[in-house]
């Protein structure tokens, strides 16, 4: 009797076997479906041409070929671009996080007239798609001759208008609201000024929020191409200065591949007769290269990533 009971629902403290089996099956099958594109990409990127053409090879390449990666790295000029890509992702993320923290602290700890209006405006900047501001921002950057320089990402980030800054401001506001005021007060009694309280009391307590903010900003800045390709000058011809990131290289992978092949073939003296369309394996290798740094960061920091999100109380809003 006890055993059957255990099988079904168990007790409040322990779930039944059937239930657990159900949960695991769901999680594993959904997880597989979920990961399918990434797995597919990962596996395909190692395949040689023979494996691609062979129908019997579906999941496991006959031998692991790194040629695709070598070619993709050449095509995407990885060595040249990785530096600018990293800088363009890291510096704006740090700026955005810093400003969001300051703003969030202001909202959480101070009372001033018009605060609620400002909070609504913060929400508004999240809700209204940035595409409305695209044309005027573009013209503004053109006027100040900033197209193709890092300023186009840096200045908005520094002034709290980076990618999804509103979310981070709300997270920080929420987070600082949760940290006890008494600590601030005792520091103030000890004679610390407002800035000092913020720097020495509030910031160390808000480490999880900082981690979330920096990580997400980094990922979003890394992944953003729609605006950055416009503002960094690579999507319209005629700009003197352009910066391209790895992701933008991925966008024009086919073209670059053609050029690359012509270059290689040119040195042999065999012009256009060469096959100049990148096969899936090379394209997937290129895609893998783009997400590899993110995957690395994610797997190294995923513990912080997930736990700190739970601790920041995003949902408070």
């Amino acid at each position: 009797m006890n055993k059957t009971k255990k099988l079904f629902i168990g007790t409040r403290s322990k779930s039944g076997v059937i239930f657990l089996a159900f949960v695991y099956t769901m999680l594993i099958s959904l997880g597989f479906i979920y990961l399918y594109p990434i797995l597919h990409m990962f596996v395909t990127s190692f395949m040689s041409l023979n494996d691609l053409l062979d129908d019997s090879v579906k999941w496991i390449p006959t031998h692991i070929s790194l040629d695709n990666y070598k070619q993709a790295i050449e095509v995407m000029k990885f060595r040249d671009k990785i530096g600018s890509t990293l800088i363009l992702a890291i510096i704006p993320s740090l700026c955005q996080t810093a400003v969001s923290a300051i703003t969030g602290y202001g909202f959480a700890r101070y009372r001033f007239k018009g605060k609620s209006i400002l909070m609504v405006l913060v929400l508004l900047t999240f809700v209204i798609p940035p595409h409305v501001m695209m044309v005027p921002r573009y013209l503004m950057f053109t006027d100040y001759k900033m197209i193709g320089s890092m300023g186009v990402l840096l200045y908005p980030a520094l002034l709290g208008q980076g990618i999804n800054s509103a979310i981070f401001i709300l997270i920080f506001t929420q987070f600082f609201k949760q940290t006890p005021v008494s600590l601030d007060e005792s520091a103030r009694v000890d004679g610390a000024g407002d800035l000092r309280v913020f720097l020495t009391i509030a910031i160390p307590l808000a480490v999880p929020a900082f981690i979330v903010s920096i990580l997400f900003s980094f990922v979003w800045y890394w992944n953003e191409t729609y605006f950055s390709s416009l503002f960094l000058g690579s999507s319209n011809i005629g700009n003197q200065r352009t910066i391209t990131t790895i992701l933008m290289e991925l966008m024009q992978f086919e073209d670059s591949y053609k050029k690359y092949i012509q270059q290689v073939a040119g040195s042999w003296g065999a012009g256009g007769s060469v096959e100049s369309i990148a096969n899936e394996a090379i394209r997937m290798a290129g895609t893998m290269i783009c997400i590899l740094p993110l995957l690395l960061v994610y797997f190294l920091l995923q513990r912080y990533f997930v736990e700190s999100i739970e601790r920041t109380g995003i949902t408070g809003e």
Partner: protein
Amino acid sequence: MGKKRRLGLGVTARREMKGYLFVLPWTVGFLIFFAYPIVQSFIYSISNVRITAKARIVKPVGFDNFVHIFTKDIYFVERLRVFFINTAFSLPVILVFSLMIAMLINQKIRLKGFFRTLFFLPIIVVSGPVLDRLIAEGATTIPMIQQYGVYDIINEVVPYFLREPISYLFSQLILILWYSGVPILIYLAGLQKIDNNLYEAALIDGASSWVVFWKITLPALKSIILVNAIYTLVFLGTSEINVVIILIKANMLNPNTGFGIASAMAWSYSVGLMLVMGIIYLIAGREKPAVKTERKSVKKPARAKKALAVRG
């Protein structure tokens, strides 16, 4: 005069000033990068903007741009329609799926960390170019769907006007599921906030887990569902593979249409999005004011206690 005032309001006024100082950078940014561009964008949307070598000529043309994009442009209306219909179908799927995953992960299970890592992974992968590649590769659909002839069934069973969105739903199923990364996170955080005592009380009262879900979990998550719906809508609306925004950019860089048309498109699109958000807000709704419950508590104290508890 000034000194007197300072003496009178000293502490609060100075504290207020400090508050303003903290939000000052953001406010400046808001004015420069949000308020000013949005006004400017509206002006462009009702003007003909031409760029010559020397200057920018902005000539007001009334609502010609809007008339143009809605009557003459062959793509815009069509793409708007496709986007909004697809969103109407994928949004509920995302919301339900992410709630499901969140509840599964929230169980007491082993390898919790592993599964969490797995289900949040797409958050970092969903970027325009990468998704473009994966879609082109056909990796965003489940291969089984085609094998078992799901599309044939759809074509036979589903009425004509639903066919397109539903086959879209199936053909891009994984992609749509991938958008649930952040919603899962938000749900999880919400689930963990629900007081465990509520569940125990319900169990003692003999409620099945089905009932518990509908009577405790869902009502407690109501505001979170709203947050998720809005977030997902914004996310879908600004996704780089969204056909509408691709069109807007193409028009902006096209010398024949130019900035005026692009601004008009961006404005119409945003207004559309805001309308949808309004609808979501009305459906998901705000929590009803607590006053009502209190009034009930006067009449039937026993029941009201439960109602209050449910609200958490």
